[in-house]
């Protein structure tokens, strides 16, 4: 039960129920779809990128609580960040969910993202937590229109 609570923290359940920045961004200049064929999770990430800064970011789609909350929290964290800053956040987040808890993760500096520390205990859910992030990285880097984690 304690394991489960560490995965399904209040903040995750909240973002799952009430996702922030959810919907289509009409004036996006980068749009990418992320898909996990194993569970059918499918999200679209919309970015308005100007002068290397993420001016606007929204997402739409369906998926599990972990993937949806992760996408939601990601948008709140990244809005207004530069591309290098966003990539640094990607690395931090990736380390957090793939490394045994605490080892590399610096809770203090992670803010809301720290809620995802429990994911590392659930290897099968790492792909859920990182789907939106992988999509984002694809969107920042290239003009690819689809990314899949499998």
């Amino acid at each position, binding site marked *: 039960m304690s394991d489960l609570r560490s995965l399904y923290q209040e903040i995750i359940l909240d973002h799952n129920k009430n996702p922030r920045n959810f919907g289509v961004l009409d004036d996006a200049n980068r749009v990418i779809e992320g898909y996990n064929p194993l569970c*059918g*999770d499918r999200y679209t990430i919309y970015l308005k990128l100007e002068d290397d800064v993420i001016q606007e970011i929204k997402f739409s789609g369906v998926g599990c609580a972990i993937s949806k909350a992760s996408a939601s929290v990601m948008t709140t964290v990244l809005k207004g960040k530069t591309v290098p800053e966003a990539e640094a956040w990607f690395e931090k987040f990736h380390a957090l969910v793939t490394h045994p808890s605490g080892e590399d993760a610096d809770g203090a500096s992670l803010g809301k993202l720290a809620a995802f520390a429990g994911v590392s205990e659930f290897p099968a859910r790492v792909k859920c937590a990182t789907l939106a992030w992988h999509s984002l990285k694809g969107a920042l880097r290239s003009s690819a229109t689809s990314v899949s984690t499998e």
Partner: protein
Amino acid sequence: MNSTTVKKGVRDATVSRFDPGTVRSDFPALSVTVKGKPLVYLDNAATTHKPASVIEAITQFYSAENSNVHRGVHHLSELATEKFEESRRKVQRFLNATESSEIIFVRGTTEGINLAAQSYGGTVLRNGDNVVISAMEHHSNIVPWQIVCDRVGASLRVIPINRKGELLQEEFERLLDERTKIVALTHISNALGTVNPVQEMIRTAHDRKIPVLIDGAQAVAHGHVDVQELDCDFYAFSSHKMFGPTGIGVLYGKKELLESMPPYQGGGDMIKSVSFSKTMYADLPHKFEAGTPHIAGAIGLGAAIDYIGELAMEEVALHERRLVQDLTDALTDLPGVQIIGTATNKAGVVSFTIDGIHPHDIGTILNEDGIAVRTGQHCAQPVMDFFGIPATARASVALYNTTKDIQDLVAGVRHVQKVFH
């Protein structure tokens, strides 16, 4: 099975010749613990566990009988060949096929259907022809037909389903025409649990001289299959879904069809003679079994058939139907839970969703309670699209499941709802 012991799994133990409580001890994997809790295994539609007798048959082969088959005069090779061919005869009796040469060993259902689609479909299908499948097929009974249809310019026609998850029989008849070259249907749906009226549908197709392939992946572990009674032209199934090893399965085909078909793969054991200019193919079944077969797998499948043969399969089917009914009743009583697939005739499978909770999360939370269910699309994406859902959680039973397993699952579902408030 001991008929006097009173066990929870059978309501009326005094008249039963089958006791799920007792058979459990035949399956070593059922006694593992998950997260410190005893395993509640309800993912049997994905794969079943293996009785000790099957594991022992494999160990025995590798430890004392191991050899290649068909081409040796030495003792081990004769022994391996004899055991391998004896397994083929066991499958023949299991399906009540006319001849053992109608039994082709393949990797599993998927390969069996690919073989039929390429070798039979690829030969008879012409530009403008069509293949009729159903809206509830597993990807393994969709994609092989798409591939061959694409190649020759044929099209796929799909029998629609209703909201209960039953095939629309009038639509089926309407889809059949003189350009229909084969019908490919699942016996039991792995996503919905629907048992299709395949015998009647085969008759309908045969009235128009159209052959029928049945995907039996979900049927063989749950009751008696008789290919002569069904009169199907092909029947495919996987060993691993009926208590046998992985990597082996069967394509049954009527002899005259198999004889008319070109080989599927080329290699050793499937030829009569080879020269660089001309190759003569071997007789059935070897024509379709190129290369060294999965010898230990075939022998293990034989042991699984022996195991099933000792049980009263009608009792097993009855027992499983009760479990499915109990689970359906209990889940229907829970607010916010929907059963996906409510056909009148169902077997083995209960798919469900919970309002506001993604199946993936259901699976993770149940796993914390030691309960194994499958979550996702179950390789049946068109079914999910039809019901407008991304995925389901699926509980599927086998002969060793008990009423306690069902109770544990229902408690688990309540727990899931609690975690999400």
